[in-house]
C-alpha cells in the first residue's frame, strides 16, 4: 500500500535517484567514520604506548626502591639489602671484567663469601619474581667492588634485532642518552671518598631506548 503511494507521489525516476543518493551518502558516511576511526585509533595507540613506556620506567624505579629497602636478617643483625650492599662494597674488592660472559660473571659471584652469596641469592630471587622475562630488562648493581648484572634472556634477541646495537657495550653507549634519573638509584658508600653505588633498573630496555632514542 505504501509503495503504491510512493510511486504515485514521487514517480519512478525520483525513486531511483533517491535510492542512489542514499546509498552514496551512506557509503561516504561509513567511509568517513572509518577513516577517522583509524586516524584516532592510530594516535591513541602511539599515545598509549608512550604512557606505557613511562609507566615501565616508573615501575623499574619502583622495583629498585623496593629492592633496596627490603629488610634482611643476617645473624642477629637487621639491616636492609641496600645497607648490606654498602657494607659488602666497603669490605670487599673483586675483579671486575665487563667482557666476561654472564655465566662466568655469575660463577665468580657465587664464590665463597657469604655476604656476597646472600646478596646474589636475594637479587636472583627478586629479579626472577618481579621482572617480566618476556621483556628485555636489566638490573645492575655497580660500584668500585661490586658488579652484579642481571638481564632478561629476551635481551639477546632484542638487542641483536635493534639496528646498530649488537653488543652490551653498545647498549651502555646508547643508555648514555637516557637521563640517569629514569633508571639509576644511588646508594651512599661507607667511605665518603668513594663514588655512590649505582643500581640500574630498566624494566624494558627496548621501550626505554624507543622513548629516548640514541643520538
Amino acid at each position, binding site marked *: 500500500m505504501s509503495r503504491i503511494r510512493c510511486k504515485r507521489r514521487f514517480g519512478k525516476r*525520483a525513486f531511483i535517484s533517491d535510492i542512489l543518493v542514499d546509498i552514496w*551518502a551512506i557509503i561516504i558516511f561509513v567511509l568517513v567514520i572509518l577513516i*577517522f576511526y583509524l586516524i584516532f585509533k592510530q594516535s591513541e595507540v602511539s599515545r598509549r604506548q*608512550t604512557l606505557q613506556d613511562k609507566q615501565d620506567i616508573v615501575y623499574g624505579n619502583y622495583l*629498585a626502591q623496593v629492592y633496596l629497602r627490603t629488610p634482611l636478617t643476617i645473624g642477629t643483625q637487621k639491616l636492609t639489602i*641496600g645497607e648490606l650492599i654498602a657494607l659488602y662494597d666497603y669490605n670487599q674488592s673483586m675483579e671486575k671484567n665487563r667482557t666476561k660472559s654472564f655465566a662466568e660473571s655469575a660463577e665468580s659471584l657465587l664464590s665463597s663469601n657469604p655476604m656476597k652469596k646472600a646478596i646474589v641469592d636475594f637479587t636472583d630471587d627478586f629479579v626472577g619474581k618481579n621482572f617480566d622475562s618476556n621483556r628485555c630488562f636489566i638490573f645492575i648493581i655497580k660500584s668500585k667492588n661490586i658488579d652484579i648484572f642481571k638481564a632478561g634472556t629476551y635481551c639477546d634477541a632484542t638487542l641483536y634485532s635493534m639496528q646498530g646495537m649488537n653488543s652490551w657495550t653498545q647498549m651502555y653507549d646508547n643508555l648514555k642518552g637516557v637521563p640517569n634519573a629514569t633508571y639509576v638509584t*644511588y*646508594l651512599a658508600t661507607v667511605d665518603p671518598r668513594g663514588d*655512590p653505588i649505582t643500581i640500574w633498573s630498566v624494566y624494558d630496555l627496548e621501550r626505554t631506548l624507543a622513548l629516548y632514542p640514541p643520538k
Partner: protein
Amino acid sequence: MRRTMFRNRKAMVFNIMIVIFTITILVYAFIRLSAKMNSSKEIGVSEFDLVAKIQEGEKAMIFLDSAAKMAIYQAVYDLQAQGGISEATLCGIYYGFNKWNSDTGQTCFVDADSAKNSMRDLFVSNLVARVAKYPSADFVGNVPAAAYARGAALISPAGAVSNVSQVAFSGEKRLSKEQKDVLLTTLASKYGYELAVLKAILVVEAGSQGFNPEDTLKIRMEAHKFNEYCGCKEGSWGSSTLVGRAIGGVSCEGGQVNEHLCLKKAISINENAAYQAISMGLPQIMGFNSKRIGYSSPKEMFDDFSRSESIQIEKLIVFLSTDSRLSQAIKDKDWSTIGAIYNGDKTGKYAARLVQNYKPEQGTAIV
C-alpha cells in the same frame, strides 16, 4: 510534479548535509586534538612526570637514609678513636688520640655534654661528606659553612681527615696550596680559629713551606737555647750574640744548608739539646715543646715533622689549643699577645708582620 521535485531535492540535500556535517565535526575534532597533542604534553604524560618526580624524591631519600646510617657508624668510630672528644685537651695528644691523663698527672676526662657535642659535630661532618656526592639533588645548600667545610675536607683530594689522627697519616710529604687550605679550613673550623690568622702565622714563620727544596725539614737553630739545654757557656759551643748564630764554630747563618750543618754539629755535642733548640717545619715550633704536642722526645718530634706537612699543621693546632691564652688571642686576633706568646716578641714587630700577612679575603670558609 513541481511538488515531487521539491521533496526529492530536499532529501538529497539532507543526506549530503549530514555527510558534510559529520566530516566537518570530525575534522574539527581532529584539528583540536592534534593541536593539543602538538602544543603541550599528551594526556597522562604530565601525571606520569609528576609520579617520576615523586620517585626522584624517594630515591633521594634512600640515598639520604643510607648516608645517615654510614655517617653515624663513622661518627661513633671517630669519636672513640679520638678518646671520646673531638677537641684537643690540655692533656695532649698521642698520635692524634686525645689523652685522658697528662704526663704531669692532669686528668682530662670526657663529660657527657662534650661527648654529645663532639658526636653531633662528627656526625654532621660525615653526613655532609656523603650527601655532597649525590648527583641529583643539592642536600648541602643550607648546611652551615663550618659543617660543610669539615664535610668537604673528608672527601678532599688531601685525603680523609675525619679525625686528627688520620691527618698524621695522610701519606703525602708536601701538600699543595689547595690541600693546605682544605686541611687548615677543617682544623680551624673545628677548633674555632680563623683560617686567615693561621695562614698568616704559617707565612711569617716559614713562608708556608715546611720543607726545603732539597726535601729537608725547614728548621732554625736557636744557639742560645742549645747552650741553655746542654749547659754550655755562651760562646764556647753555641753563640748567638758575638758572630751570629753558631754551634761549635759552625755557623748557622746563611740558609737552610747551614742550619742543618749547625744541627749536625749540635747533635754531635748533645743530641737531646740539639733537637730541643731547633724550631721545626711550617709552624716553627721549638723542640722543647715536644711533650706538649704529644711526643716523647724532641727527636721523635723532628722525625715525625720530617714525614709530612699535614703532621706539622696538625701539631700547630695542638700547640695553639693547649695554651688557653694563646688560643683566645688567636680567636680574638690579638696580634701583640700572639706575638708575645708564640714568638716571645714583645716589641710588636712580629705582630706587625702577622697583620701584614693577615688576608681574610683568602680564607672565608670559616664560621
